[in-house]
């Protein structure tokens, strides 16, 4: 995978250093969170599957940091980064991954269903592509009540071959809904190369065929992504209807933490490692004059925070058994009367 031909040009060097240092902080926090989660997994503390987004952090940061807290996002099975960047509490997130009391979902969802409605994060999803119609519906609700919010919907390159991708994009366009679609194109659908499964040029081309403006971007260029996300979000918020960002990136791990990903070319992996979005942003900030100590602190503080977060989760109690019967439904609640 070489960078896309029509990726955004490198940005000018007059960086907004404060703003981008915040992006760097977020990216480090995402990476540190996932590295801690992987430690938790290897210790047997995380019992379900996790899908790390290591290598893809720039996308989550660029999109979510350009959103308002009241804006909404819908995420995927690979959703830790989006959730954290949108402002969810890392402690509650890690507890969720460990299935503990105090998890964002009370331990009932785990990694694949992580959600924090208090920051507008309406859920990861275990079904590829299913979050697209849900995002569109959330935007429909916003439009009905004339709210200022927008909805960002993340999905992978594999998801664009599912029907809901078409149905959701078509819907967003005809109802002119405030949705930013973000295709995180990491070139792989689980263990299969997405290109082999995908007709045509992919997400951007399909969006354009529906009259939805779309851009192809370098997903490992945090600075370019930030600018593109800011512009796209502004356009969506201005009522111009949906937009799509087709972002080319790469996951440095296997599909799940358990996947050694031996099916990938070592050279491909190495080429992408050289384009690590965090290292690139850190280098750009250093070049722009940000204090190296600040940049180093960004990394170390994130690592320290997430080590704490894992410790907290490890020490947290299991959820109360009653939770298994709670929040099923009001009418015909199973907790009300045993069957």
């Amino acid at each position, binding site marked *: 995978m070489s960078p896309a031909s029509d990726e955004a040009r490198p940005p000018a060097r007059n960086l907004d250093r404060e703003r981008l240092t915040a992006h760097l902080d977020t990216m480090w926090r995402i990476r540190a969170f996932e590295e801690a989660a992987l430690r938790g997994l290897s210790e047997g503390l995380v019992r379900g599957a996790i899908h790390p987004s290591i290598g893809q952090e720039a996308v989550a940061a660029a999109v979510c940091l350009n959103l308002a807290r009241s804006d909404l996002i819908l995420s995927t099975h690979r959703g830790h980064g989006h959730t954290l960047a949108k402002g969810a509490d890392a402690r509650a997130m890690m507890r969720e991954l460990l299935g503990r009391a105090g998890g964002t979902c009370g331990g009932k969802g785990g990694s694949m269903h992580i959600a924090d409605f208090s920051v507008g994060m309406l859920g990861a999803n275990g079904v590829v592509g299913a979050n697209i*119609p849900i995002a569109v*519906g959330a*935007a*429909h609700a916003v439009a009905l009540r004339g709210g200022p919010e927008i909805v960002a919907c993340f999905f992978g390159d594999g998801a664009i071959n599912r029907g809901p991708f078409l149905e959701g994009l078509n*819907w967003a366009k005809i109802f002119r809904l405030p949705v930013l679609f973000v295709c995180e194109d990491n070139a792989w659908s689980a263990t299969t190369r997405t290109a082999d499964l995908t007709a045509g040029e992919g997400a951007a081309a399909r969006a354009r065929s529906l009259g939805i403006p779309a851009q192809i971007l370098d997903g490992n260029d945090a600075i370019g992504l930030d600018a593109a996300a800011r512009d796209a979000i502004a356009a969506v918020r201005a009522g111009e209807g949906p937009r799509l960002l087709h972002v080319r990136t790469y996951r440095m791990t296997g599909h799940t933490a358990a996947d050694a990903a031996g099916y990938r070319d070592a050279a491909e992996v190495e080429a992408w490692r050289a384009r690590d979005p965090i290292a690139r942003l850190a280098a750009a900030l250093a070049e722009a004059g940000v204090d190296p100590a600040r940049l180093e602190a960004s990394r170390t503080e994130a690592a320290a925070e997430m080590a704490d977060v894992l410790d907290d989760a490890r020490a947290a109690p299991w959820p109360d058994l009653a939770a298994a019967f709670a929040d099923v439904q009001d009418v015909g609640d199973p907790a009300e009367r045993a069957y």
Partner: protein
Amino acid sequence: MATTTYLAASTRALAEEMERDPSVWALGEDLGRGGVFGQYKGLQARFGAARIADTPISEACIMGAAVGAAMAGTRPVVEMRFSDFALCATDELVNQAAKARFMFGGQATVPLVARQPIGMWRSSAAQHSQSLEAWYAHVPGLVVVAPATPADNLGLLKSAIRADDPVVYLEHKDLWAAEGDVPDGEHLVPLGVADVARAGRDVTIVTWSAMRRTSLAATETLAGEGVEAEVIDLRTLWPWDRDAVLASVERTGRLLVVHEAVTVAGFGAEIAAFVAEHLHHRLRAPVRRLGAPRIPIAYAPPLENAARVTPDAIAAAARAMLAPAAARAS
């Protein structure tokens, strides 16, 4: 009191709830023209195209969008046109709508109503005639409603719209034109409460939807023979009114479940099994189910009829349960 149709009752229910609560809206195909059966007639003119929304032929997105819209604070009423087409939106209904509240630890509710017209009508063949209420009763998180009368379609649809749960709302296509009295003022029917459509002492017939009418027809014949059948119209299938059924069967000692759907793994199995579990020693005859054979529904009228439960079949089944032999042999 006024006489109205099952169809008009549903229109009134939706209109009243839309009037009462601005967060209620409806979405589906051809709603602007009144919907495929006319159940939305006049509503777009009254409430506008934003709240009576014409959608593309995208059942998955209709249901999925409703899930998102419900989580984001509105109360969508989803029209699936024929319950068969809801099978294009099963992931959205079963994996998303039903589970979101639980998976997210109670952070969201999903107050949507999924209207799915069910049942045999006339020569509609295998893809426009199904009744799959048993499926939805099996899915944690879902409420399942199947009204049989105009008054119930009014009162239950209103309650369904007010419920904070996803409700699968099964109107029967063959009942649209059915007439009945409905109260003039606000009329709410609580979810989960059965209606005793006819009182009787000899056998309890538990049924719902269009089979209420068919069962009542059978009781006329039976009454002529001195058999007094009680007919319980469940109205809501989840939660079903176990107390009402147990109380009745405790009196009559006989349970006959009648439904239009396929017998095998139909919801009648749940009722029969539950009663057999709980009232075994009170039964004066084995529990009994009447439903369709396990065949797709054919187009040609005589073949279509092979899948129909008739008043005669119901009367015959009840009669057999009352025969002295029933209490002995099995």
